[in-house]
Every structure is written in C-alpha cells, then in structure tokens.
C-alpha cells in the first residue's frame, strides 16, 4: 500500500463505443497523479478482471452507456472474485438509473457517478478511500 501512485483501471465493458466519458475520467485521474490503465472499448468481464490482476490495480472504473450494467457488472464482479482481485475498489459511471443503484451497491460497486459529475469529485473520492484503506 506504500506505493507512490494509485493505479486505476478504466474499462468499458460491453459493446458500446461511447468512450468520451471514460477518456475524460481517465485523463482527469492521470492529471491528478494516478497511474491509469485504459482498456479501450468492448471489454469482456473476463478481460477486465484479467487486466485488473495483471496490472495490480487499486481501483477499477467501469463506464457504460448501453444500459447493460445490470447484466454485465455481476459478471465482472464474479470474474474479479474468481481471479482473487476482489479487494480492488470498483466504481462506475455512465447512464445508470438511480433505481439501479441499490442493486449495484449490493453486488459490491462502491460508488456510482452520474453524468455531469465534476471530475474532481471522482479524484477526491478515490484519494479518500485509498487513504482510508491505507490506514486500516
């Protein structure tokens, strides 16, 4: 936990190609001093978990706009668990109706950032949970 920079995987699960938000977040986190692994579009749950493992990341950020989050996120959480990287902090963004938040929290997603969230808020969130994690 004593490494210099927080490592974040920014991933786009599913088939949707709208990567504007993911790229903005990725760049904002990088500008905030984090190390970013950006996967590009069309990542399967298996691929995402594999990269999270290989790259030994602290945080996985999932961006999805196609509405497939309720189907794909459980598969991703499952894959992370199978690969033994379920200790990472998983956060999500995109077009996700508020009524889906409880189900997503329940499956272990730690935070959900809707459209219009200032990027600084996400930076702050990650810094805060990483600091808490370091303490515990």
């Amino acid at each position, binding site marked *: 936990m004593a490494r210099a920079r927080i490592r974040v995987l920014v991933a786009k699960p*599913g*088939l*949707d*190609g*709208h990567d504007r938000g993911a*790229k903005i977040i990725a760049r904002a986190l990088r500008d905030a001093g984090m190390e970013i692994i950006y996967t590009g579009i069309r990542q399967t749950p298996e691929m995402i978990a594999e990269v999270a493992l290989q790259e030994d990341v602290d945080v996985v950020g999932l961006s999805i706009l196609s509405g497939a989050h309720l*189907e794909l996120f459980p598969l991703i959480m499952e894959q992370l668990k199978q690969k033994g990287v379920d200790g990472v902090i998983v956060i999500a963004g995109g077009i996700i109706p508020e009524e889906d938040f409880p189900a997503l929290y329940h499956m272990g997603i730690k935070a959900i950032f809707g459209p*219009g969230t200032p990027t600084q808020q996400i930076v702050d969130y990650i810094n805060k949970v990483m600091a808490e994690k370091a303490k515990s």
Partner: protein
Amino acid sequence: MVDTLYTPEDIAGLDYGDSLGYPGEYPFTRGVQPTMYRGRLWTMRQYSGYASAEESNRRYRYLLEQGQTGLSVAFDLPTQIGYDSDHPLARGEVGKVGVPVDTLEDMETLFQGIPLDKVSTSMTINATAPILLAMYIAAAKRQGVDIAKLDGTTQNDILKEYIARGTYIFLPRHSMRLTTDIFAYCSKYLPRWNTISIGGYHIREAGSTAAQEVAFALANGIAYVQAAIDVGLDVEAFAGRISWIFQTHNNLFEEIAKLRAARRLWAKVMRERFGAEDARSCMFRTHIQTGGSTLVAQQPLNNIVRATIQTLAAVLSGIQSLAVASYDEALCLPTEEAVQLSLRTQQIIAYESGVADTVDPLAGSYYVEFLTDTLGAEIKRYIEKIDSLGGAVAAIEQGYQQREIQESSCRYQSEVESGKQVVVGVNKFTSPYPKLTRLLRVDPGVERKQKERLARVKGNRDQAKVVASLKNLEEVARTGENTMPAFLECVEAYATIGEMCDILRRVFGVQREFLVF
C-alpha cells in the same frame, strides 16, 4: 470568439452569386431546393428502436399515427457489430440501445403492416450495412413491393466508427469495399436509396467542435467518393445519392452557419475536386439529430428548451430530415410521451413558428454570413491538414482525428468544470428537481425471447440453402465481386447476421481499436 457587433463592413467581401447564390442552385449555400419547406416540409423522423422487432414495430406505427413522416431504425449493438443475439459478447446488450435483428424474420416483423413503398426508412447501420440493407430489400420483396421504389438511407459510414462511435468490425479497406458495393448495387437497383449518410453527428457527440464535426465528416466524404471512383464507379452515378447526418448543439448561430458552410464547401469539393457536373451530385442533403450529449439528467424538462433551440437551428439552416432528441434521454430510452413531445417540437416549429415560410431567412445577416465564412475557412484548413496526412483513412490510422476530438472534449470539460461554460442545472442554477417517474426500461426477458426466436428460425430453415449461400458469400468476399447479391441470397435463406459476419471476419480480418488516449 464572437465580436460584440457585426456591420456591413464584416461582409464587405461577400459576392452574393459566388458565396450564396439562389437556393436550388450551386453552391447551394441557401439550400438545395429552390422553395425548400414551402414546397415540402422536412421529413420528421425520430430515431427509434428497442427491445424487439414487435415492440419497435408498435412504436413505429405509433409515431406514424402521431404525424411522423419517415422512420429511423435504431439497431442494438450486437446487430451493429455482427453478433447473433446468442453470442457470448451479446450478453446484456440484446434490445438495449436498439432493435435486435438476427435474421430476415426480425426485419419482416419490424415492418409488419408498414408498406415499404410508402414510407422512407433510415437505418443507423454501418459495419453490417449491406446485410441489413439486403434484409430490408428481401422484406420489401416479400411485401410485393418493387424494390426500385424503396426510399430511405443506410448510414453505411464506417470511417466515423473508427473515429468516434466504435461499431466497426473489419479493417478499413475491407469496410470501404462494402461501402462502395452498396453504392454500385443501389445505383443499379435502388435508384431512390440514399446509399450513405456520412456523419458528423457522432464526431460531435464524442466531443468535437462544430468545425471539426463538419471537417472530419467532409474528409470522410472525400474518402468515400475517391474510393468509389477508384473502383471504377462514375461519380455522377453515385454522388447524387450521398446524404449526411449532423447534429445541432445549443449555439444557435454557430450551428446554422456550420451547416450553410458545409453545403457550400461540399458543392465546391464535388465540382472542383471530383469534376461533378450534375447539380445533383453537388447537393449536400442532410438529416439532423439534435445533440444527445447536450441533454442532461439534472432538471430534465430543461432539455425541452435545449431541444427547441437545436431544432430551430436545424430548421433555420435548411435541412431535409430531422429527429429531435427526447428530454429523458440522459436518463433512459425515450418514453412514448417524450418521443411524442420531440415530434410535437418539430410540428410546432413547422406549423406555428413561421420559420418554414421563407427560404434561408438569415441570409444576409452580417453576423451569420461572417460566421459562415469563418467556419468555412476553419473547416477547409482541417480538410487540408487531413489531405496532407494522406486522406481520412490514413489520418484515422495515425489517430489524428481521434486526438483532435479528445483535445476538444477535454477543453470543453474543463470549461464546464471551471464554470466558464455554463450548463444550466449542472454547474449553475442547480436546484432539487422532481424526478421523472416514468422511465422506459427494456424488459430483462427480451434477451431470452430473442434467443428462443433465433433458435426457432434456425430450426425451421433449409440448412442446405444456408450453407450454400454462406459458401457463396465467402467466395464473393474473397474475389472482390459485389457482395450485395450474395448477402441477399444468404438473407433470403435466413442465414443469421452472425453467420455472415463470421465469414467476413475470417476473410477480412478484424480491426482492433486505434487506441488514442
């Protein structure tokens, strides 16, 4: 930067005939038809499709009843990327952002009771455009419709998929071949079909500026025309069936000027670069979809205001076809009420606002003409830059457009975060707001049902015919003959989209992302 004041001095150099001319005449700055909306209103065509062919068919019939004058089909992502609904990669995506179409049967259901010789249909489909067009043709034939009468558009604009939208499958050169196969086939058999709709919409959606939106789309257009000429097509035989899709954002005058500049520039490209003589080959005919990414989740009714401004921008710029994004789109798929309001927005502007009474009403405005020239010059510089990189395809492969867009996108984001760019309800004038209570959710059972349906179709078809038609497709794909007849044969044998694309993936190879970050 906009000046405080524009006066006659700002357009002192404007030569009416050369810069504007009369509507319906080269260079078409004032519009491609002489009477524009006085002759016929633009086509009102809401983008729509979700869940299943039955459900989408119901929505289309509803929209036609409500006074819509054309259809616009949204396909789900597996259909756009060439996977059957039962493919592992289709998990969770079936019926989500559009209608799933696995086989001809889905296409038949989609247009059940809608006579295909009476309606014009636009299909947002790119990598798999020839397959979906083949299905549309086959469905029309089954309705007994003369296919020469088919009116509509296949988006068929693969280059912007590499740049901005992501639903490409193959390497660019193979994709370009499929594109030009459609050009060639339609110029023979579907003379009224718009073979391509070259898009700036998604480029803007990815975060570009207005000038980039037009410039990158025009550069792609140049690449398609060149590709078609290179495979031996006569420019006059296909150029008249090229159409366009752009978006309108909130900046009313910039959007109007952008589209007027685009019309003038494209006319000059066609005549000066490609030697097109026919006026029709020089006409820039465009569909507009108001800007989806300008809509926000906060205070959703505010989006009706934005969509109205954007609709006005579209109509005032002189267009052929229009879809208005729905106020709930930042939250969910558009509900029936929201899509009705989008259509009503068009109708109020068409019938109550008076803006359709005269052609190009802003012509002559010191500001608008100045801005049209200024944006035109900026667009031209981008096109020259892309030319210098070897054209649109080469520039994409180098990541040029992608990088430019990302710069713009990040600049905009930082302007929003600093408050320099106000987004009402998001970074200024925020306040609690009543939640929308009626959100449209796709029934989670849709995917299972679609898989069952696919299994049933596969169980009932003549397997030998399928195998033979797919074998033929593979051969045609390898030899370089026009693929359209082969697709048609496969489609009519109820081969699935996944079966056809698997063959093409094998023959053409698969494009990985041009990762720019």
